[in-house]
């Protein structure tokens, strides 16, 4: 699904989180939103996911206006910064949550839910943890469960907020490869937020550099390295 962002702005009272920004994301791309803390990355991601409504501007999914769609109607697979796993549910129930939440006529049978959850657990390479609780998992395992839970709803796109932010360097590298693999397997349009330029450059097809609510530059990693559009970009990717 391609995503078109037109003159999108978001204000929180007196703070402007997003200046009007425009951006076009081709279907199936793996895109990173890169920028320092407070630059509006999370806000942009949340507006796309329907968790925040823009002050002005439009969002189009496959050419259709999606600005007014509710969070449930968006069907965006969202991975939260601290994963937001349901702490009182097992890993199995976490992943099954979206399937059970469907209206009765489109809800899969128990057997089908079981099959799908185990398929997702195999996909994230954690086949044996279905009965554990989130508190019994490592950070890396939690992150992968959050990804599986988001994928379970057969989302139209995948949105990840600093998916590797809270992990140590080794796990980080491992999971980067995992995200790339899952992206390539599912072909989902994927947008992830990061403040780590190395991560953005290594992992994504398209990098969106942001600063103070504005988009400074959009381009392939190689292009951004070779021709930074502004002084901010040049300094940020150098850091």
């Amino acid at each position, binding site marked *: 699904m391609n995503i078109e962002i037109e003159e999108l702005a978001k204000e929180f009272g007196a703070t402007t989180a997003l200046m009007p920004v425009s951006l076009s994301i081709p279907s199936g791309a793996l895109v990173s939103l890169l920028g320092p803390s407070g630059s509006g990355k999370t806000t942009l991601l949340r507006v796309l*996911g*329907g*968790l925040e409504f823009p002050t002005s501007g439009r969002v189009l999914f496959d050419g259709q206006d999606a600005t007014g769609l509710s*969070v*449930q109607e*968006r*069907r*965006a*697979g*969202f991975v*939260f*910064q*601290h994963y*937001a*796993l*349901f*702490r*009182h549910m097992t890993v199995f129930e976490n992943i099954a*949550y*979206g399937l059970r*939440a*469907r209206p009765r006529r489109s809800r899969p049978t128990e057997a089908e839910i079981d099959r799908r959850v185990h398929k997702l657990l195999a996909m994230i390479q954690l086949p*044996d943890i279905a009965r554990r*609780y*989130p*508190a*019994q998992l490592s950070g890396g395992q939690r992150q992968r469960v959050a990804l599986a*839970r*988001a994928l*379970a*709803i057969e989302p139209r796109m995948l949105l990840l907020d600093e998916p590797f932010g809270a992990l140590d360097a080794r796990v980080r590298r491992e999971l980067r490869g995992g995200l790339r693999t899952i992206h390539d397997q599912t072909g989902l349009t994927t947008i992830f937020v990061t403040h780590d330029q190395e991560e953005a450059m290594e992992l994504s097809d398209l990098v969106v550099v942001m600063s103070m609510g504005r988009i400074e530059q959009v381009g392939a990693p190689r292009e951004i390295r070779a021709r930074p559009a502004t002084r901010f970009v040049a300094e940020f990717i150098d850091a």
Partner: protein
Amino acid sequence: MPADIALPASAPLSARPPRRRARRVTTEPGWFRAALIATVLTLLALLLFLPLWEVFSQALSEGFGAAVASLGNPDARHAILLTLLTALVAVPMNAAFGIAAAWMIAKFDFRGKAFLITLIDLPFSVSPVVAGLCLTLLFGSGSALGAFMIAHGMQVVFAVPGIILATMFVTFPFVARELIPVMQEQGRAEEEAALTLGASGWRTFRTVTLPNIRWALLYGVLLCNARAMGEFGAVAVISGKIRGETITMPLMIEMSYNEYLTVAAFTMAALLASLGLVMLTAKTLLEWRFADQLAARHRH
């Protein structure tokens, strides 16, 4: 990677070094700790166990039969039923209001939030007698609202609705106060996750919000209930103390005591205390039963 590989019994467990009497980080001498523990136990005995013991022994001073007989008195039976009815109405209402208030305060930003928090605490800072007096004035025949309601057949003051209202006012903060910090600590992320997974607002509340607060809610409800059944001051003012009509258990205790009906007073007191102890036991049993879940959640 399967984490539960059974280790042979002889394998050295690096995670668990041999037990050794290590020097503690806290450096209070042993005698000090012993003295502290002794002081606390003595205070507990003096302030909690002795009075409770006294209540029960006074109740049974003329034998078990006399105690039971005192409860068989129609006025006593009415007082017990009225107290149970009051708790049965006031506690669920306050649980519902408490959840709603805590939810708004913890999960949303709006103007006047600090004011709302202060408002919730109001019943804690106002003397129950004053609260009862205010409600009596508000709903009494002297005020426009009271006169209107009485004209339409709704008697609040000196009647059961007044008792319930006063009880609700006094016990309002208990549930909200327990829930607000828990909800604030948990933030909104899990609820938002449920919404992105397609759950409706109601389903999110039922399957994510409520289970996450259930222990705090239980605790708040138990406190609220204990206080609702035990409330004296506000109820004493608004009830008018009509025998056999608006007398609750605490009021009955006082009346019997003033009339030198020792057995009746202390039996009722013992019953009221027992109701509280039953609640406490129920809570402890639940905590014990769900210890695993509690531990799993707190390890976060």
